[in-house]
């Protein structure tokens, strides 16, 4: 399967040039870029590991791309995403989020059904990869 979280997962994977253009857009809006990675891509896993703190003072897209590449080199078999934080009043929330790295093989998720009374089913979405410990989940 192909994990389709983020803004651009239905497009072919972004090139460095395309990533740089998106970073430049975020910076132009005054947002702070941040890099996060995980090997637990469950849709409800909100808190991916942070690659440092959001780069509030880094305004150079090339510098941010360097951080992204550094993260990708360190975690080539993880999902890596770029998030842009907007601190303006009334938003104070991420305004962009897109994947910049994914494992070569994505086994995806199973749906665990627990049958209850009245045909009700309790559903659990379970990543096939998380059976292995963190850090060794993707080939």
């Amino acid at each position: 399967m192909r994990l389709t979280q983020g803004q651009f997962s239905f497009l072919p994977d972004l090139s460095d040039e395309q990533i740089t253009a998106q970073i430049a857009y975020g910076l132009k809006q005054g947002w702070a870029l941040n890099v996060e990675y995980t090997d637990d891509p469950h849709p409800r896993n909100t808190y991916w590991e942070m690659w440092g703190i959001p780069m509030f003072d880094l305004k150079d897209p090339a510098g941010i791309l360097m951080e992204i590449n550094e993260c990708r080199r360190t975690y080539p078999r993880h999902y890596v995403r770029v998030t842009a934080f907007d601190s303006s009043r009334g938003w104070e929330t991420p305004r962009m989020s897109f994947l910049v790295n994914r494992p070569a093989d994505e086994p995806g998720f199973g749906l665990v059904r627990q049958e209850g009374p009245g045909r009700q089913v309790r559903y659990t979405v379970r990543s096939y990869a998380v059976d292995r410990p963190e850090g060794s989940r993707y080939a």
Partner: protein
Amino acid sequence: MGAIEEISGEVMDAKERYKSGVIPYAKMGYWDAHYEPKVTDLIAVFRITPQEGVDAIEAAAAVAGESSTATWTVVWTDRLTACDVYRAKAYRVDPVPGTGAGTEKEAQYFGYIAYDIDLFEPGSIANLTASIIGNVFGFKAVKALRLEDMRIPVAYLKTFQGPATGIVVERERLDKFGRPLLGATTKPKLGLSGRNYGRVVYEGLKGGLDFMKDDENINSQPFMHWRDRFLYCMEAVNKASAATGEVKGHYLNVTAGTMEEIYERAEFAKSLGSVIVMIDLVIGYTAIQSMAKWARKKDMILHLHRAGNSTYSRQKNHGMSFRVICKWMRMAGVDHIHAGTVVGKLEGDPNMIRGYYDTLRENHTPMSLENGLFFDQDWASLNRVMPVASGGIHAGQMHQLITYLGEDVVLQFGGGTIGHPMGIQAGATANRVALEAMIQARNEGHDIWNEGPSILQNAARWCKPLQAALDTWKDISFNYASTDTADFVPTATASF
């Protein structure tokens, strides 16, 4: 075109004023050309078409009177109250540009009326509307009447909960940022069994949509009872979520004949793990407010379908503008509301829709006559409402939709997903690819209004479903003149 000069004034002598009998509203104290609205006043602007022979100021005063304290004759019991405070005051009457003498249309006027905040119960849309659109719309002295806009004072806004979730929190819960959300209404609206219905939901969500949706008139009918629909839809939602790794949802319409049944359906939706429920505007203001409180308490997103609104919002001379509905619904506390597409099959002038969208999404909307906004409005940190664009739109219009509507919107392609020649999943994928390609191009600095068609063509080169969508619907557009447009002269007089 200036404001009409004062032609009549309140009778100041109390004995004379309260003599039994009938005197003009303007003379009863419902017209005051020198009145300066207080920051705590609620202001309404009505489009008034007076009956022949009725003076515009008297008509405006009558509207002020009938929407506040007046009855048709003088009553001495007024004198037991601080009646001057409770009287609404018409304070300004402007002729509507393009109407009256020398034009083809009968004379219409914009009448501005100020209401003291104590006329209204805190936190009650029902009470607010019972005054403002209560008796007065049937009043004989006006031939037609339309509520165009309202300025709600911050003090009154603060008595309302506002949207249960709001755009910011909805996006955080769904983990979806930086692009419009995508949805589709299950079709056909009526007749599918629960099992067949859930099939459509699964296909749409797996193909790339964020939401599927019940239609306004899908409740609990002989062909599909509500529990069956809810169970199959949640199977579809969860299965699609596992297939894509994304949070997905289906707006389960909990509209029913009684409030008790609405709660029962909503609780069931929640117990099944749905992130969102849906209601129709026709359930009424109080029921909507109740559901907004319920949704806040239960961590649910509340979708509102505006079923019924066009019966009173479309025609320009009578009823009320949809922008007022938008204001009331933001106060009442819904998270989503259908607010027009500009390019689709339903009524929608671009400027009017801009006004609705700003009203739903911004923290402060400045006066903009061009967009139909008569007042500055401070929203006092009430959550933002996510507008929903639905009805006759397709992937080929993506550049137009994003240009007109921005990114904080749910784009709903019903026929444009389910009617795709390669199937529902392909239809959903076509829409999602078109959307992501257009947002990517916009962020890269492309002029999507002009380059849109070529951006779509480029994406269609590697995405067959998009190519098929573009081929199927390339010539479909709904170019009819809008009924509801702004009446204003671009160079406003000093009185504005």
